[in-house]
């Protein structure tokens, strides 16, 4: 259903009482931002349900959980003030903390000046509630509760609290909400639902449904909320649902008689407890009928309200009848469309299980990281910028980037761990061992908001060092100082050359960046995620990911480089052109039953990393015969086998590595280098946003990160 603009709704009307300054922002952004305070079972669950209903849930608050994310994308802050520093326009907060901690949570929110505070918690000691009330009154906050199910605004599609989605707004045109209707205000949650559905069954819309809370001492009462609701121009009738105990109903009645001008609209009171036995506590602390009181009984409430001219009912049938009388000639919606909407709800099959990642979106022929296309990233960003983007979802500032460069170079300058290589072991196994034996890396802290990104940067620096060690280039790193660029460190570590050639350097970095991530499904990412889910250390989790990069996953580049070189030497040895040499080589391979590596991809028909790497190598004048072959190979393969197998990123990297005259093995090393950044991001995402030891079904992952955006120039 199309909702009304939020600034025209009742919630914004309530916000205006307390924080008129926020209304402009709400109108401009079309959003009322809210936070969920307390992330126990209920807070977690209802944060998701609120968001699904349409509420803008900007953040969750839970001490000691800052930096995590709930429902995969909602950020968590340690405190309200930290949240407000980054999100100053929060207008609503719901509190889901236990009654022993609810007071402090509420005071913090109120001190922060958030205008609408919904206190869900039940059983808060009265002394604590009085403290909360005192603070709220001082700052003119609209406090709802405690022990409230919350508030819901069907026309805007916003709820703050746990009210189920059973309310229905005015529907002036099919599937389009209008602001008019009845405002329902109740002390009890379930009565609220039953009253609203009673009204809806008679075609009467609710423009707001407010649960004031069932306790004896609460924030806003009928006397405060009824005039506010009546002042809202689109409210036609106010229904209050009161019950035995307390004196709210009597006080409202007094106020109606004393200040009739504040009550310009019709009203109905449903009072429950007509048949409750005296002197028994009925759960709601408020509902104790003490013998001999002139308030608090069904009779005292009924009498007071009737004297104030408010009809009092005690059943759903009577409520519907009297409401219809008060609203003659009003139609808000077709009852059939209400029942149709409700039927859709109860007939919806349970939601398909899914879980979210906000790092990388993988679609056929498109890879994007936090909304930026990977080909643009390869062209414009350094490895460190890309690593920052992977972990933090935004590009770093120049200042931060400088810091990262220093961290990474410093990491590369520390000696590599002493490890033993077993004859013939895969380089990924050697690198995994480095990760696990590295004191410097293990000692580098990952705590704090920037801990994850700093750790990732440090790990990349260490990785350069490991490679230099494995390749025998450690001496090249001796001359690196604080002002050396990490890019040249990478180049030195990989090639052993002291004089960095800018174009070659750039091309190598581009190949590394091209390999950073491919979502959660590659075996390396799966291995890292499973380890992270069991809360293995960072080093262990990344190491198992690296270890999963083998000849079958990520290792094709080296094989491809070898193949291309074979074609080139055939061409020169037999003095035939490249194309013919390649075709003959392919035919040879087919005869021997050997695969051509670097061809085909399970997602992409045109690998999004292909053209950008080809173009870079050509524009730098670094493309040679292997790149040329890599551009022909798909066609040649088709001529031989009649099968269309597009070249993939491994094939392209293999060709470039071969043309650069580097060892073939380096193709795989570059891939692993880049992937360390992606695996780090997946590790940190898992621990920040998922419960430990969940069972991970990789096919159920859904990208929930930033929408597509163009890379800043």
């Amino acid at each position: 259903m199309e909702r009304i603009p939020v600034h025209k709704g009742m919630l914004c009307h309530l916000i205006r009482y307390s924080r008129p300054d926020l209304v402009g922002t709400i109108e401009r952004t079309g959003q009322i931002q809210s936070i969920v305070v307390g992330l126990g079972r209920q807070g977690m669950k209802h944060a998701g349900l609120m968001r699904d209903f349409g509420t803008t849930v900007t953040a969750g608050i839970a001490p000691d959980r800052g930096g995590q994310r709930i429902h995969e994308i909602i950020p968590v802050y340690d405190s309200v003030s930290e949240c407000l520093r980054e999100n100053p326009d929060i207008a609503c907060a719901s509190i889901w903390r236990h009654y022993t901690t609810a007071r402090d949570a509420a005071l913090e929110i109120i001190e922060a000046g958030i205008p609408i505070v919904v206190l869900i918690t039940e059983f808060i000691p009265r002394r604590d509630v009085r403290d909360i009330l005192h603070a709220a009154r001082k700052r003119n906050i609209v406090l709802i509760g405690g022990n409230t199910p919350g508030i819901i605004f069907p026309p805007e599609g916003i709820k703050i609290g746990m009210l189920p989605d059973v309310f229905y707004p005015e529907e002036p045109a099919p599937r389009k909400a209008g602001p008019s209707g009845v405002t329902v205000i109740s002390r009890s949650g379930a009565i609220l639902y039953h009253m609203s559905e009673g009204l809806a069954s008679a075609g009467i819309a609710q423009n707001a449904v407010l649960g004031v809370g069932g306790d004896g001492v609460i924030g806003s009462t009928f006397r405060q909320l009824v005039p506010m609701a009546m002042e809202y121009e689109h409210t036609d009738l106010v229904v209050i649902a009161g019950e035995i105990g307390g004196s709210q109903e009597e006080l409202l009645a007094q106020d109606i008689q004393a200040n009739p001008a504040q009550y310009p609209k019709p009203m109905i009171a449903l009072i429950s407890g007509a048949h409750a036995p005296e002197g028994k506590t009925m759960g709601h602390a408020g509902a104790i009928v003490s013998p001999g009181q002139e308030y608090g009984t069904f009779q005292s409430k009924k009498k007071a309200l009737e004297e104030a001219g408010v009809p009092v009912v005690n059943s759903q049938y009577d409520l519907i009848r009297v409401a219809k009388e008060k609203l003659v000639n009003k139609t808000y919606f077709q009852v059939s469309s209400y029942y149709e909407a409700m039927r859709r709800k109860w007939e919806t099959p349970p939601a398909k299980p899914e879980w979210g990642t906000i790092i990388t979106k993988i679609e056929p022929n498109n890879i994007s990281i936090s909304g930026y296309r990977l080909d643009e990233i390869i062209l414009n960003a350094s490895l460190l910028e890309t690593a920052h983007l992977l972990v933090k979802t935004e590009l770093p500032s120049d200042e931060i980037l400088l810091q990262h460069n220093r961290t990474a170079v410093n990491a590369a300058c520390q000696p590599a761990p002493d490890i033993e290589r077993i004859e013939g072991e895969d380089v990924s196994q050697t690198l995994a061992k480095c990760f696990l034996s590295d004191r410097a890396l293990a000692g580098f802290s990952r705590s704090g908001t920037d801990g994850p990104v700093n750790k990732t940067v440090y790990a990349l620096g260490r990785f350069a060092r490991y490679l230099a060690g494995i390749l025998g280039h450690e001496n090249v790193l001796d001359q690196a100082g604080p002002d050396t660029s990490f890019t040249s460190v990478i180049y030195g570590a990989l090639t052993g050359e002291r004089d960095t050639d800018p174009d070659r350097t750039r091309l190598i970095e581009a190949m590394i960046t091209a390999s950073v991530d491919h979502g959660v499904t590659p075996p390396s990412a799966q291995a890292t995620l499973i380890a992270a889910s069991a809360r293995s250390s960072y080093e262990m989790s990344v190491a198992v990911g690296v270890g999963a990069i083998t000849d079958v996953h990520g290792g094709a580049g080296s094989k491809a480089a070898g193949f291309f070189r074979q074609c080139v030497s055939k061409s020169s040895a037999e003095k035939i052109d490249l194309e013919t040499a390649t075709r003959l080589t392919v035919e040879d391979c087919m005869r021997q039953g050997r695969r051509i590596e670097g061809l085909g991809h399970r997602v992409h028909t045109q690998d999004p990393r292909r053209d950008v790497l080809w173009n870079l190598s050509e524009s730098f004048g670094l493309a040679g015969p292997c790149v040329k072959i890599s551009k022909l190979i798909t066609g040649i393969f088709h001529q031989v086998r009649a099968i269309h197998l597009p070249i993939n990123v491994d094939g392209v990297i293999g060709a470039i590595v071969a043309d650069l005259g580097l060892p073939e093995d380096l193709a795989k090393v570059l891939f692993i280098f880049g992937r360390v950044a992606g695996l780090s991001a997946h590790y940190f995402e898992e621990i920040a946003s998922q419960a430990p030891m969940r069972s991970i079904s990789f096919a159920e992952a859904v990208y929930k990160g930033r929408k597509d955006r163009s890379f800043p120039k």
Partner: protein
Amino acid sequence: MRLYEHEAKKIFNSVGLKTPRQIGLIRTPADLNNLEISFPAMLKAMTLIGGRGKAGGIRKVNNMTEARTAAGEILDMTIKGYPVEAALVEQAVSERAAFYAGITTNPATFNVILMASAEGGVNIEQVALENPEAILRKEFPDNAMEMKEPDALEFARFLIRGFGDDRDLAAKLKTLIAGLYSAYQKFDCRIAEINPVIVTAEGDAIAADAKIVLDDNALYRQKTLMDMIGIAEARHDVSELTRDEARARDAGFTYVDLLHEDAPKDPDKLYVGLVPGGAGYGIFSIDETVNIGDWFFDGRVVPVNFMDSGGGPSQAGVAEMFHLLMDKEIVDIIITSRFGGISSCDVFIKGLIQCFRDRFRRGDRIVPVYGRMVGTDLPSAKTFLERAKRETPDQLKDMTIIVGNQKIMADVIREGIVLGFERMETKGAGR
């Protein structure tokens, strides 16, 4: 939770308030022999219900013979239906003046309010009605833990307006008022009241009576207080729990019997058990059942219980709610509504089905259940229900749960009652 007078006095003593010397508690007149009584003494019925003074539950006695007679009479009394089980013996004090002092949370403003009156020992509501100027009221919106000295002094001076400038007494009353306030806050009271405060001939200000009602929500942090009065967990107010009320409390939900435990069953009437959802609808569903019974069934429908089945109970908790009602002989049908907000329809239906299956397996009595579920987790609840009905049709044949709000709850209750009467007739015919 309301404290007995002698308990409240202990609490007041702990914050420095003076009380008459507490001699002891007796449960039989013979217990008097174990006490060291100096006469005159007071004998007071220990009850949690008000009105014992009017009923003759407070006596002054001047010697042992009088004491025995008075004790016998008091311990035989029943006040407003509640038998007196113990009496307090305390020193009688000479009385120069009697005041009233009480603190509560004003139900209108929700602020702490202190009230004092120079007319003590009488019904303060009466005074408030007839002679409002005799009462000084002050609210403390800042909810401070201690009272400010000038405020306490203001009350003290107000009380001894007619006494001339008695500084010593003013100081004593100031301490008493400040102590009362302090106890109110420190012990998380809902009511802390002294009526009367007695000014003795010697010029002391003492709490001759004491009333404290504690905030149950805060009992968890009142261990010191509980230790002081020697109880381990909250006590039910006024009356004892019935068997089923205690069973529900042990299972973690609130339940109240609306009928006397062994009330006779009228064969013409339908007795309805209610598993209604939260406390609010728990109260309202009683009204709905009675009203619908009156309007459509000649008043032949009797709700049996109040229940708070909301707040997100566990599956076992839900099962126990139904078990409890099915174990009650008097219940003919159970009507239930799950309007899931915080509570999940999924947990609800699993608990209900578990109850049916358990009873079927054990051969326990099964009472038909008629109701509806709507709200949180409905889709998965519906899937579960449909599968359960396919898999164990016999076990669940007496369970009718409407999925979604296809009809309003009042209609569901009405249909449930119709079904209940049908069952009653078939059963009757079978007999």
